């Protein structure tokens, strides 16, 4: 059946649901339920993580083919089936999702006090949806997961969020859902055109040139909101600000990658000509995103909002990379997605550490934290520097490759992306300076405790990953090298064929 002899991907995908079911069946007093729910959720997510590590070990990076494939006939008469599999582009995102989930559960250990059981269930369902989305190889299955991710996230923001959580949750939900409706139309058209929704089969079918344009924009409507690209990014800061810390981590770490993943998985291979034609539009939107949101980040007074805006700027780099259509750009985009998942997740955790103690996200509420919490200041500094793109830490490799890739396409785009380096340093250092440095202005801050062992446990893997990705990125790059090369080859071939047909 596949390399490991049992349906590994389905197991990874649906095991969290089993865990959620067990949590649901727990009976007893509230405190008992809460404690059991936490432990069951943690253990479930850890087992899922261990299982997913099999992917890391057994994945064969020398081929671009889908691996660990599973097929079940579902609606054969409509050409719709249950089809799972990963290739070099998706496999690391599965790992990213399964690695961040246990950390999020740990980070919520004490921060969430009400409805713990429901919270943990939501998180496990969220994990199922994320992993399923990255593994799905049937467009209908993909669409189901892609949309279903919204539901647990909507609940996490809407139930456990801050004071304006209902507004933020609805904004998040409506924005991301509206775009998706158009994508459904596009999927229906593709199904009608090819008679199947199986993704590898769809790759073989050329989409008529005339249809490519509107399908591209239908996809763009959906993916651009998820990325988010300028100017449909305003849901993100609101959602981040109101979401609980762990929600922000998943939102920044995994959910933002869904849009970019969509571009890579569908727009580029299915619509090569339209993608090439509208790449300049994407470039302009991305460069505007980098400069505009970096400047907006500079003016923020709320820590979470600042990091949220910085995410938009980083994702601008990603979209530039995707549409460069060269090996460096695409690899850089993928690497930035992973690095951003780790680093911005960690930055939200850093904010969470302070929020748990002081219950304020206002930057001016802090000052001189480095003196009171030296270990925390060191961790925060590391991730700040990673976010700025310091070489030797995770984000640099991605940005570097994207700039190199972009230069080959258009030097001004590369310049725009590089401008993010200066502005990024500006807003992050300004944030760090106001929070960590300076005199202690509030006496109540003096009583703050430094990182607890639980918090060390949460940060340690992220620190290791950040350093590892910065110093030896090759162990990640080699996963998607062949897949990216194959994607580019197909893209070139399709463009070549189109040119021949046009002559």
């Amino acid at each position, binding site marked *: 059946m596949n390399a490991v002899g049992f349906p590994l991907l389905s197991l990874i995908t649906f095991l969290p649901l089993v865990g959620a079911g067990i949590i649901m069946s727990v009976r007893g007093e509230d405190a008992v339920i809460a404690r059991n729910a936490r432990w069951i959720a943690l253990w479930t997510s850890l087992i899922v993580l261990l299982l997913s590590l099999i992917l890391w070990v057994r994945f064969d990076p020398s081929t671009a083919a889908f691996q660990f494939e599973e097929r079940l006939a579902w609606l054969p008469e409509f050409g719709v089936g249950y089809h799972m599999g990963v290739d070099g582009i998706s496999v690391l995102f599965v790992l990213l999702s399964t690695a961040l989930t246990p950390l999020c559960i740990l980070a919520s250990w004490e921060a969430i006090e009400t409805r713990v059981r429901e919270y943990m269930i939501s998180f496990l369902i969220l994990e199922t949806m994320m992993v399923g989305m990255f593994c799905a190889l049937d467009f209908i299955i993909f669409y189901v997961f892609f949309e279903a991710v919204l539901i647990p996230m909507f609940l996490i923001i809407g139930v456990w969020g801050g004071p304006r959580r209902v507004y933020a949750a609805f904004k998040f939900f409506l924005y991301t859902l509206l775009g998706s409706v158009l994508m459904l139309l596009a999927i229906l058209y593709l199904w009608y055109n090819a008679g199947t929704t199986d993704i590898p089969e769809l790759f073989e079918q050329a989409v008529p040139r005339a249809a490519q344009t509107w399908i591209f924009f239908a996809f763009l409507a959906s993916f651009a909101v998820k990325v988010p690209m300028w100017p449909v990014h305003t849901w993100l800061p609101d959602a981040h600000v109101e979401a609980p810390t762990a929600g922000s981590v998943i939102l920044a770490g995994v959910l933002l990658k869904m849009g970019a993943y969509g571009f890579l998985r569908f727009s580029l291979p299915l619509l090569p000509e339209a993608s090439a034609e509208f790449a300049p539009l994407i470039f302009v939107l991305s460069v505007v995103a980098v400069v505009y949101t970096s400047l*907006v980040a500079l003016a923020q007074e709320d820590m979470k909002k600042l990091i949220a805006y910085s995410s938009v700027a980083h994702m601008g780099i990603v979209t530039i990379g995707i549409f460069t259509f060269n090996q460096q750009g695409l690899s850089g985009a993928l690497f930035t997605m992973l690095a951003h998942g780790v680093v911005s997740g960690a930055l939200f955790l850093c904010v969470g550490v302070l929020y748990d103690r002081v219950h304020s996200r206002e930057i001016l509420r802090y000052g001189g934290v480095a003196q009171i919490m030296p270990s925390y200041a060191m961790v925060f500094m590391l991730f700040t520097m990673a976010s700025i793109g310091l*070489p030797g830490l995770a984000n640099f490799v991605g940005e570097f490759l994207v700039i190199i890739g972009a230069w080959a396409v258009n030097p001004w785009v590369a310049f725009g992306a590089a401008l993010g380096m200066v502005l990024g340093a*500006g807003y992050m250092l300004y944030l760090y300076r106001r929070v960590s440095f300076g005199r202690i202005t509030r006496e109540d801050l003096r009583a703050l405790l430094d990182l607890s062992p639980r918090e060390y446990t949460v940060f340690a893997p992220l620190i290791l990953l950040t350093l590892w990705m910065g110093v030896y990125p090759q162990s990640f790059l080699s996963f998607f090298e062949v897949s990216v090369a194959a994607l580019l080859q197909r893209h070139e071939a399709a463009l070549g064929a189109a040119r021949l047909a046009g002559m």
Partner: protein
Amino acid sequence: MFVGAIFFPLLGACISGFLGRWIGDRAAQWSTVACMVLAAICGSAAFGQVALGGHPLVQLIWTWMDVGGLEVSWALRYDTLSVVMVAMVTFISTLIHLYSVGYMSHDATPARFFAYLSLFTFMMLMLVTADNLAQLFFGWEGVGLASYLLIGYWYDRESANRAAMKAFIVNRVGDVFFMLGLALTFYIFGSIEFATIFPAVEAHAADRFLGIPAIELIGVLLFLGACGKSAQLGLHTWLPDAMEGPTPVSALIHAATMVTAGVFLVCRMSPLMEYAPVALTVVTVVGASTAFFAATIGCVQNDIKRVIAYSTCSQLGYMFFAAGVGAYQVAMFHLFTHAFFKALLFLGAGSVIHAMSDEQDIRRMGGIWTKIPVTYAVMWIGNLALAGIPFFAGYYSKDAILEAAYAAGGGAAAYAWVLGMAAAFLTAFYSWRLLILTFHGEPRADHHVMEHVHESPLVMLIPLIVLAAGAVLTGYLFAPLFIGEHAHEFWHEAIFNGPHNHILHEMHEVPHWVPLAPTVMGVAGIALAYVMYMAMPALPARLARMFSARPEMVRNLPLIPAEGAEQQTEPNPGGLYGFLLKKWYFDELYDAIFVRPARRLANVFWKVGDAQIIDGMPNGAGSLAVEASRGAVRLQTGRVANYAFAMIIGLVVFVSLFLFVG
């Protein structure tokens, strides 16, 4: 040995940084010093084997990334150019570590300080031994980080935080150009490994990019990057503010690490720069202008460290125009000798500040030379070397630079020579102004301070004495190797001179008065300083008033020591004096052009762009849907936000079509 020279400092930084809290401050300090000593031993041994023995080598560590033809490795490239830097950096950094043990003895968190100091050294070593542009960029950014941490070391001071941020961000501006230069290098050569680029330069000499010769563009972009790190005109504003860090940091930044990185880069890229004459002209002009510009400012500053800081800026200008006229070896030689006497001057200044109970304003010093004789003597030596007085280190290198500029011929080189001569005069002048105001005359500090004036402990004096020996001897000892008749044997292939570049030879054949001229200028500068500050102490203030728009604002020289009023902002008297005092108004200019507009724009984007226009749109769409459901479909929504949103989208589409299709 080759790996040890680089990684011992990192080991020291880790021990002190991560274990400092458990092993105690003393153990942390001395372990970093021990690691530095080991590194210095390795560095000197490597110098012997590679430079003197003539065995360059590349030590591969592991692959960094390998993406579609872009191969980048972590590797240590040991040739004469890098090993000179390694030996010099490890040696001077060791002395600075040792000195810091005494200087930072009253500090609250010395373990943190020593960790940063060693990290700084490590990053600089990674920079100089890089085998490709990406690793060089790693070190490049690494020293940026370390300087940020060190300048902002006393993070409870608002001014230190501001200076640290400024240093990092101004450096980042240069880094953008570095990055673009790197991208263009890859685009042209298909590689960023030095070993691949350099032999291919000639084949690509005629390549054009966007209608510009590609090699020239790479040269200019990389030089702009170097400007940021080496504080050249335009991107120099961070350097004087960097004085907010503890004094040993200033010594490290200005002497061995960080600011020399830009000069090193230009020399490292000599095989490429030799094919980029326009870029070299730019280097020459910017370098010469900086040498002069910084020297003029140095003449009126009143903070002991700032005067020396501007002198660094000025000396870096010398190095750049030396490289610009093709005499890379001479630039490296000046870099080498400068490292010794500049470290000496900063550490000496630190010793003075230490003695004066943390006073830095030279107007509140004076009359202390008998109380701190060793410091006084080494400051003399440092200044003699800086001013290029014969037989001190600076004499050999600075003379050689001016001879090279004279010999090179051509407009840019002549411009450099004239400004270089003027700067030599100013250099000697401000050095003796500093010396006289600091040590001689009536004591202008209050008696509490004067009572406490004391010589520094031995752990601080030993590095000073060693550096003083260096400031005397390095010129004489190393001149034959670096720039002598047989210099090519010393440098091997590390520095490339084009087939028509015989500058090293020609500079020895200039008319007889040329080598003498800088010395004359130096002596004249000293004489003027003597007249103005020793013989007629009232003259400077009178001159300052004469060249001010608002003379009443010039403060009298025997400044009345104001209790507690230290570090208040200097009033601006305007006129030429004010122009110099305010550093040619660069800070004010940048504030008005970049900083404030960026802030304003940020607020407009946020409050108007995001909150009103973009968020207004979905809300408008929502209300439209509601109205539509009531059956009241209207073409005009009547909402400004909708129109504005549509306009933004339209504008973006239009711009992209215009840029990419048209």
